[in-house]
Structure formats: C-alpha cells, structure tokens
C-alpha cells in the first residue's frame, strides 16, 4: 500500500537540489575579471586576469557544494579552485517542483493581481 503513495510523492517532489543533468559541469563564462583564485578551503590565494585562464567552456574537475568552489585544470596542468559566484556554470541550484510539473499536476496555484513578486507567474 505504501509503494504507490511514495511513488506519487516522489514523482511530484523529486528532490534535486542541484540541477545535475546528464551533461558534465562546465564553466560558461567568467563574471569577475580579475578572478579570485582560492585554495581548497576557499581562502584567497591571488587575483588573476581571466585571459590567463582556459577559455570557456571549461570542464569542471571537482565541485565542492558546501564551499561553492569548482576545480579546473589549466592547459599546463595547474589546478585552480574558483568561486562559483565569480563564474557562470551550465547548471545551477534547482527546485523540486518546477512550473511545468506544477501545471502538469493539475492543482490550481495562482497569485493575486497587483502584487509584486520575486518572479513572474508560471504562465508568464
């Protein structure tokens, strides 16, 4: 009896905190220039011009979600930790129930007119 209930709940509230799709994590662009080069504990090591870094898209070697760090490798094999706040990644934080699933679930969910919100309605 428990299985179908759990299945329904799991289907609707699929808990994905980070949008880990099938494609690997990549840096799409550098937001800061110069950019902070950090150590693995998120301490600042130096600032470096982005022209000295690999040209995006850059494959991410490792990801530390707690410290918001990604590890990349330069062409000469140097390993660098970067702050995710200073780069744009191809994947980001996610929600467990997006607009599409919300509409698909068939449950009425609307907000009143004349309000200002953080985002637009699902149908906007």
């Amino acid at each position, binding site marked *: 009896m428990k299985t179908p209930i759990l299945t*329904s709940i799991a289907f609707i509230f699929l808990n994905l905190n980070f949008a880990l799709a099938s494609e690997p994590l990549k840096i799409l662009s550098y937001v800061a220039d110069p950019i902070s080069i950090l150590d693995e504990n998120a301490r600042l090591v130096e600032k470096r011009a982005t022209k000295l870094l690999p040209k995006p898209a850059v494959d991410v070697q490792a990801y530390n979600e707690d410290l*918001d760090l990604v590890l990349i490798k330069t062409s000469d094999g140097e390993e660098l930790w970067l702050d995710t706040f200073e780069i744009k990644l191809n994947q980001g934080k996610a929600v467990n*129930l997006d607009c599409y699933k919300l509409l698909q679930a068939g449950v009425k969910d609307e*907000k009143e007119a004349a309000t200002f919100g953080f*985002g637009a309605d699902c149908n906007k």
Partner: protein
Amino acid sequence: MKSVHKILLISGALLLSGCKTLDGAGRAIGNLTGSKLHNQFDGTYIAQSELKQYKEREDQLSGSGALLSYSGLNIPEQQVRKSHIVEAPELTDYMQNIVTSLMANWGGTSVKTKVQIINSQNFAPYADTYGTISVPLGTLENVESEDEIALLLAHELSHILLRHHERNDVMNAQKDKVTMLAKSVILANMVKDTKLVKSSGDYKLQYNASKQGQSNISKAALYNYLINGFSDSVWNTAWQRSQEDEADLLAMDLATAAGYAPRASSHNLQRLNDFQGKQDSILSKFWDQKTTALKTSVQELDLSGVSQQLDSFINEGMGTLVSATTDYFQRSHMSPDRRDVNIREYVLREYQPQSRQRVNKKTWQQLRDKKQNQDIFRGYRYAFAASSAISSGNLDEAEKLALQATSTSVRNQPGIREVMYDLRMAQNQSNKAKQNLALVNNWTHASPDFFEKKVDFEMQQHNYQQVLQFIELAESTFGNKSMFIVQKSVALANLQHIDQAISALKECQSYEAEKPTCEILLKQLEQS
C-alpha cells in the same frame, strides 16, 4: 529628433509635475533597451539621493510592528489573497524576525509588514500593497539557507519600501496622458511653424511645416502610436521590470547590511530559473540576435528605427521569434539569468569582501528539520499530491494520499480539509464532505474558493443565517465586499430582510462582474 525627446521630457515634466511617484520612468526606457540599472550610479543603491523621498513616509503602513488584518479595507476582488494561509507559527515568526532585522538597515521610516506562509508550490514570494509578504510553501521546500530566505524577503520588503505598488498605480493612471503628451508635441510644432502673415490686406495664420517640424510631428505621432499600441505589452512591463531591478539592488543592500551572504541571491535566481523552466532559451536567442539595432534606436529615441526593427521581425516571418518578442515584452521580470549576472556585477563592485562570505545552511536546516515543521511540510505535500490525483480522476490514490495528510498535525487547516472535501464530493459523499467543512480550525486562513464552497453548501441546505455569518467573516478576512454580495442578497431575501437585500443589490451594481446578476435580482425583488 533630439528636440522631440526634449519636448516630450518637458511636456512630461509639466504634465506629471508634483508626481514624484513616477520617478524611474526614464529607467524604464533604459530597461527596455537592456541597460543595467547598477551601471547608472556610483556607490550603493541605498545611498542614492533619489531614495531619500521614500525614507520618510507617513501613511497607513508607517510605524513598527505587524499589520493586523484587512478588515475595514475595500480591496478589489482581483487583489484578494487566493491561497490558504498555512499555520506554522515558528516558521512565520522566524521570517518576521528576519524582516525586522532587514528593516533596521533601511535608514528611514519603518513600515508595518506581515509575513504569511501560503499553500502554494510556486517558488517566488510576493508582496501586496498592504504590507503583507506571502511566502509560498514551495519557497521553503526549496531554499537551503537563511541567507536565501533573507534575500527573498528583502526583495519583497524593498517593493514596499520603494512604494512600487503606489508608483505602479500612478503609472497606470498616466496612460491616457501619453496621448495628450504626443498631441502637445504636435501642437507645439505647428505653433512653431505657423506665422502671422499679411495677405491681400488681411492677416492670416499660415502654417508652413518646416522639415524639422514635420519630422517632429511624425515622430510624435509614431511615438504616440507605439506607446499606445504597445502600452500594455511593452511600456508597462518595462516599467515593472525596472522596479524589479530596483528591488533586487535594495534587497542586496539591506541583506548585506544585516550580515547575510550576497551569494544567496544567486542561489535564489538559479532556483527561479529552474522553476520557470525553458522559456529563457528562446528569449535569449531573441535578445542576442535582435536587440542591438532595437537598443540603439530606442536609446536615441529614433522611433522610426524602432518601428522598422519591429516590422522586420514580422516581415522575416519568424513566427517563433515574433511570439518570443511578445512574450519577452509581456514578461514583468527580466530573465533570472540576466538578473543574476547584474546583481553579481553589483556585488563584486560594492561588496567585494562580503562576496566571499558563504551561506549559513545550519540555522534554517535545524528549524526546517524540527519534527513539528517537518510534519507541516509533509501534510501539505500529501495534500498537494492528493489534489493532483483528484484532478486526474485517480480517486483511490487520492484517498490514500489525503488520509496521509490528515494523519499530520495540520489535519484541520483549511488547505488540508479542502482536499478532503473535494475528494468526498468527487466520491459523491456529500455528507462526509460536509463533515470536513465543520472540522476547519480557522476559517480566516481559508482561501476565497473554499469560503465559496462553504457558502454554497450552506445555501443548498437553506441555512441562510449561517450563510450570512460566513459572508461577514469573509468580508473582514479579505477586506472585500463584492465576492459574496449575490449570495448575501439572496440569503437576506430568504430571511425576509427585503430592505437589506435591496440595499445589498444596489451596492452590488458598483461591481462590474456581479452587476448583471444583481440587476436581474433587484428587478425581481422590487416587483415582488
């Protein structure tokens, strides 16, 4: 061309003089052209002199503490809360305290606010004109840190502090004046090119349109056409988007000053991007491919250029892009992706040291994971799934899910009881459905839809006294008298309070949606 711009600005200033709430209209044009608000000033946004006017206020919102209720207000039906309120005192107090700490950094008159959690799986909180900040359960289900919550609340608080609702109302009221503005440009140019000349002994006013004058007139006419033609879909949304930009920046200032990590804003916008889905890719494509020319045209107010650009979209027959164009212009918010980049640039400029601060996940997760709070989330999650099962006709599955929802501590909250009510009605068990109405622990937290179900149910049972009691409760809960005025009139008439029924029906005639029904009833009642 520049003189038209000048005349428009001067005429605009004359027409709108004394109306400070329209500040930012210029920025709306900037927003339309894709320019970034944070690049238009130095220093922090909160320190800008234009914000001084919002820091001192004396109105119904000024003061400290929380708003108590909507009772006594006259809120239009479309602005009334649509969702159930979720009773979760610990979570609500927690967020109200965050708002208080954010407000402490405003440096101006405090405003009364009320944070409420609503039964919605949407991700984005919102604020109304009365100082209420509604936080959907969907927000709390998804955020990971107090910093994220603080940035979201700060954004909503910023709308209230910057009086965006009020400014929006004024903006809408100015729509008609746009036509007048364009006409005044046309007249001004005609006057400029009209000379008093003597002809055959008589003086005549002779109009010889100069090249410049003609050009100004045609541009003003075009401006008028563009503004009116695209008023709703272009200008008004550009205006709203510029207000969102302002709220993003002020939120960052307030939250950073309160000690929260700026990067939480980025987390929120990434989640919003994920929530809103795939719309952005089409829009980005449009933006990247087509806006350069449009941007230049609007920046220079070369309106024929704008028109040509818009025409070319259509002439190229790009169905998708044309609808994307409309879609883009109709969106009240810039894409989360772009907002994220903008706000990160601002943080790296103004809050470099704080930009390295990591979010604090511990406080929020400890609170969220407390047994009683988990129970609340679980109850509403099951209720949502049950509701979804009812809508797809899977009543067996819905029954199991709904029973799980009623095994939690929130079992008698309106959001849970409504699902049970709907389920029993779908199962043709109206007596059992009725029991769920009686079990609701607090009707002031119910949605208008659920109130309506209750009122309709009592009407069917001819319990008119009960109907009136519930309508009175709904009126004070939502601050609205139009929603149930038809049922109220019928109940009064059935209780033989004919004068009161007639009076209610006369009042009803001022409400557009209900007017036709009330007119028929009034006629019948007056004939009886």
